[in-house]
């Protein structure tokens, strides 16, 4: 049986979670105050996931950058590759909040969306 301790990042409480995986692959989680903690520990044990937030260059906008995020979580080890892919692209203003900037970031199957509206520079 393998046991690991995590601090939950699902909310500001930061519960200390103890996750154990049995020989048969059954995971038990202790220390969580809510269901989100259990879900987090299970994922963290097998395949840690994170939301990536960064910025992308804008052409012709009232600001130089548009903030973006992955619509869902992507594997933690793909974060740096994701950043590199997003550094290479530019988007043209206007951009609407929620608009898809990249369909499938580093083959994660997850899209990247704008988190702010950037108007065109007059």
């Amino acid at each position, binding site marked *: 049986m393998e046991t690991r301790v995590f*601090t939950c990042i699902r909310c500001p409480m930061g519960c200390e979670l103890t996750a154990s995986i049995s020989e048969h692959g059954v995971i038990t989680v202790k220390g969580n105050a809510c269901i989100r903690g259990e879900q987090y520990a299970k994922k963290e044990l097998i395949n840690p996931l994170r*939301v990536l937030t960064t910025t992308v260059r804008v052409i012709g906008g009232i600001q*130089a*950058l548009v*903030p973006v995020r992955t619509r869902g979580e992507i594997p933690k080890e793909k974060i740096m590759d994701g950043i590199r892919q997003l550094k290479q692209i530019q988007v043209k203003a206007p951009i609407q909040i929620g608009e898809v900037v990249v369909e499938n970031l580093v083959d994660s199957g997850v899209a990247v969306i704008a988190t702010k509206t950037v108007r065109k520079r007059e």
Partner: protein
Amino acid sequence: MNYDIVIIGGGPAGLAAALGARESGKASILIIERERELGGILNQCIHTGFGLTTFNEELTGPEYTQRFIEEVEGKNITVMLQTMVIEITKEKQITAMNIERGCFLIEAKAIVLAMGCRERPRGALNIPGYRPAGIYSAGTAQQYVNVEGRMPGKEVVILGSGDIGLIMARRLTLEGAKVKLVAEILPYSSGLKRNIVQCLDDYQIPLRLSHTVVAIDGKDRVKGVTIAKVDERLQPIKGTEEYISCDTLLLSVGLIPENELSAMLSVTFNPSTGGAIVYENLETSVAGVFACGNVLHVHDLVDNVSAEARFAGKYAAEYLNRTMEEELAVIPLYAGEGIRYTVPNQLRISRLEEQTIVRFRVNKPCSNAYLCIYFNDIRVDRKSKRNITPGEMGQIIINKKDISKYPKINQITITMEDK
């Protein structure tokens, strides 16, 4: 120019205050914002973590703010951007200026102070050394990186483990900088635990607790800093110095409510928060002037700012119906053992709602403690608390029906007691 309610500041507090005021009546409402857009500091907070209690999802700062801006639009709330308030009088005359109108006067019936806070600068720390380029407050660096697209440096040391410092450790790492370490003078971090995990641990950035920067090397540009361990009295311990080469030092060493305008009004301040002393309805010592958000006390979660500010707006709208100021019985609310401060600080029984939310911070990390409410010397409530640190704001409810059971209360005290 006349408005019933003037809200100073168009960040999360100002926006929610405007909505709270609108929900409570038909008053004319004006938001004055000095920047080019609404949203305040959230515009540069591109990371997630906002809105968990308000919207039950994790949004980025700009997304969170957009939801409030959309709600404000179409509610007949006037917004003045790029407008700076330079003076307020007790008569609620506001002097403001902008490019179109120059200097002009606004008369208000009620005012909501929602100016937010700013970062403690290097000057507040007394670190010896020259004044080389490469020393930034963490929020300034955040503005450079996230809004302007400029990097402050390549090799970074961060002093202070407040949330902005932790968030910037990750952000600069993603942008290609080497963040060498985060030094925190206290034996615990003042940031949220989740940020230590997802901003430092995820990127193997060391957090050196009980350490501070004792010298900055470099004349034109930062070349390095000397860190040292500190003792219980937070004094550097000789012989523990360590030189860390870097070209950038970020400071994340606390936030100060931006209360210059409130001081002009001579509102009474609480030295523990740097914000105004307020009554149960978030009204300051000046009748008809309300305060909310980070100008009142520094919050760690914007969701709490929005909730608090909505109330301030609501009570500002109710104030418009107040016909005369009367002397009301006031019960002071004290921060007792283990508590650094409470908001509000004074309760007027006749104005209390069924439930009053009291927000507080503890003065040291607590595990397995009791959060208690005392009416005079009588303990009327005791709740078990698992873990709470000074970095996390807590809240407790005071029920009006409990107060009415004890007619002879002359003070209420909140405490956090070890089990």
